[in-house]
């Protein structure tokens, strides 16, 4: 489960708006719209797939710019992906983002013994290489 709709509980089907590129061909006064085909790839399909993956990865990363705060439910939800079942915009990751409140120096102190034990395992630091013998 990567995303969850807070309204209906859907965690599978979602919608988002992305940009793609189409090709306009003008022939004899007639205009036709089709996929933009290049010799070795379909530019239209590639842009749709790449842009969709980009926006999903961006929302899953959940930094401040991709989130909005809802004071009603007191939760954060993303601004780009909506639920495809109920149309709700309140789609978020199924857990709250963690905010570490322990200061760094306190964390270092807590882990000092573990670090010292780790350093003891590294014997090469205590045994310097012998460059020459008299």
């Amino acid at each position: 489960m990567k995303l969850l709709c807070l309204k209906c509980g859907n965690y599978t089907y979602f919608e988002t708006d992305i940009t793609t590129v189409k090709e306009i061909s003008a022939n004899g006064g007639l205009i036709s719209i089709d996929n933009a085909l290049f010799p070795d790839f379909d530019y239209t399909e590639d842009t749709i797939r790449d842009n969709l993956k980009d926006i999903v990865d961006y929302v899953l990363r959940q930094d401040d710019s991709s989130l909005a705060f809802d004071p009603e439910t007191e939760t954060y939800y993303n601004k780009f992906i909506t639920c495809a079942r109920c149309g709700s915009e309140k789609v978020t990751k199924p857990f709250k983002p963690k905010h570490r409140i322990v200061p760094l120096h306190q964390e270092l102190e807590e882990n000092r013994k573990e670090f010292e034990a780790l350093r003891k395992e590294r014997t090469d630091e205590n045994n310097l290489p012998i460059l020459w013998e008299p």
Partner: protein
Amino acid sequence: MKIICPSCGNHKSFLIPLWVRCTFKFNEDGTLSILHVRQLESLEDKIVDQGKTSFAITCKECGADAQVTLNEYENLDNQKAQRAALEGL
């Protein structure tokens, strides 16, 4: 209507950016599958707005902004009208 690239003279193939609404699902293995793609913009409006926005039609060959002439006979009509007016005088 006529679309032409002022840089390379191409008058056949152009690229137009479009906003689409994409419906997708998460597969069990974490990949994405696209279920539906719906166009959100009117192509007619985009062609008419060419040159007024930065979201423009570009040449497929060289990437330059295309030039859209909606009524290519407009100048001829103007010339005819001017000639008729002069003849009237």
